[in-house]
């Protein structure tokens, strides 16, 4: 079951959706705007007359790809930073450790906004913005995980045998913390979905009109009275996805 969900998620992110018999997600149909779900438009149309079903399917892919990229950025840099603390010479460790705390102390929104203003609004810069603003948290968690392992007997033994800190980190700590870390990466993935949607709400996220769950939800709010289904379906899609990712992470952890 878990594997199935993971495989479906990955396939969904990877495979282009153009082969599906869907309407063009960008195609506006002014005369058919704000139509409730019906036989032609299974999930209705939005305020510009675009097919909600098709936007939902294309949009999820867009959202998940951005969140995936953001997760990749956050976890790879965060893991290196968190573990690096054990490889670095001892006297530099407090500096790195505190710089991590300092980065956490800066509001994530500010980091994200800085990146988005610097690079301009685009998918790539959004993924970077969401990813970078979570690096410090990842680093802290991976450092915490490593710390638990570090104080176990077999590490002490390895040290006594004269293993280098690089060797210990690479061959003893990393394999040990990887399972819980992967679960944590799932949580970061879920956060990335929510955060990129939040930035779209603030008007600095995905370019308006792009089929993307965050954008759909933000735009759906504007038509909430006249066409509540747009916001409803996109909100539901985000929530269900985040939920199932959290669930995957949870059960992975228990494993």
């Amino acid at each position, binding site marked *: 079951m878990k594997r199935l969900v993971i495989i479906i998620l990955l396939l969904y992110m990877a495979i282009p959706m153009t082969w599906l018999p869907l309407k063009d997600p960008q195609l506006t149909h002014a005369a058919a705007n704000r139509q409730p779900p019906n036989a032609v438009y299974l999930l209705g149309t939005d305020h510009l007359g675009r097919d909600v079903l098709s936007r939902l399917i294309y949009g999820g892919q867009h959202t998940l790809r951005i969140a995936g990229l953001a997760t990749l950025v956050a976890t790879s840099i965060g893991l290196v930073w968190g573990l690096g603390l054990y490889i670095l010479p001892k006297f530099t460790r*407090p500096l790195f450790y*505190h*710089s991590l*705390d*300092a*980065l*956490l*102390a*800066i*509001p*994530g*929104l*500010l*980091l994200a*906004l*800085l990146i988005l*203003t*610097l690079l301009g609004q685009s998918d790539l810069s959004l993924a970077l913005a969401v990813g970078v603003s979570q690096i410090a948290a990842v680093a802290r968690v991976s450092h915490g995980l490593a710390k638990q392992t570090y104080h176990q007997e077999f590490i002490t033994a390895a040290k006594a045998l004269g293993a280098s800190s690089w060797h210990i980190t690479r061959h003893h700590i990393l394999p040990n913390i990887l399972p819980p870390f992967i679960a944590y990466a799932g949580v970061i993935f*879920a956060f990335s979905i*929510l955060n990129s*949607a*939040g930035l779209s*709400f*603030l008007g*600095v996220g995905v370019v308006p009109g792009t089929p993307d769950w*965050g954008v759909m*939800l933000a735009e759906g*709010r504007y038509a*909430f*009275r006249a066409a509540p289904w747009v*916001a409803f379906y996109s*909100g539901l899609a*985000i*929530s*269900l996805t*985040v*939920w199932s990712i*959290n*669930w995957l992470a*949870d059960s992975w*952890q228990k494993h």
Partner: protein
Amino acid sequence: MKRNSVLRSVLQVVTSYVFIVWLAATFAFFAIRLLPGDAIEAKLALSAASPAAIAEQRALLGLNLPIAEQYLQFWVNLLRGDLGHSLTSGLPVTELIGNALPSTLELALSAFLVALITGLSLGVLSAATSAHISFLPSLLTNLLLSVPIYWTGTLMLFFFNAPSQSALFAPMLLLGLHTGAPIARVFSASLKQIRHAPYLFAARAKGLRARRLLLRHTLPLALLPTLNVIGLQAGFLLAGTVITEILFQRRGVGRLLLAATLEQDYPLVQGIVLLAAITYTLANSITALIQRLIDPRIETVS
């Protein structure tokens, strides 16, 4: 002798937190200056001001100085308690933040209380062994973790259309519940984990009553990792109010930060970052202190 070591460790903690705040402020100082342009240029571009006049205005505010010098000036002024003046509104940064802070504090503190109460109760309940009890709380926790906060907020606005402008209740509930969900999650996870710990079997075997077991042995231990999350959540609350403030048209630091960043109002951004960093480190040091009280084995700083 003993007092000396306590003093030393306190001193150590204080210096490390000052260092963290300094680092955060420094980082923000340089990061925001990576952006092209500034608020003055944006403002004066609208006027008939000549490039020379713009340069003059920027010089007046010290924006033309080498960045190292500006940085030095920033700290010299800060030590005098002067955070500078906002580039857009001309008001002292301390005054602007001072204006916005009470409303944010009101929201953040009350939301934190809600978060604490719901987080801990949901956590305990969803860790219950009986599915009858744990079903709803864990459903609620997962729901709050999965729904974007601005979506919950919008639904609240549309379906419980109470006057929102001045009322604290709705935004407090919204922010509190969403902040409480991660607390609930970690708390219930640690409770479940501890339940299977060998020493509890031993305690149970000794015939300890369930309540005593829960109160004396399980809860304090489960609280330790939970405190970490609580501390983090508390630290983020101050700047994490943006979306709630926008939804409910509340004045506050979050909205100020958003506007200041988009308008490239350097001094104001720096002021807010400083405030956020101080709150964050404060929240974390308090957490560390409490953790130490619960479990004296925990060292403060290595």
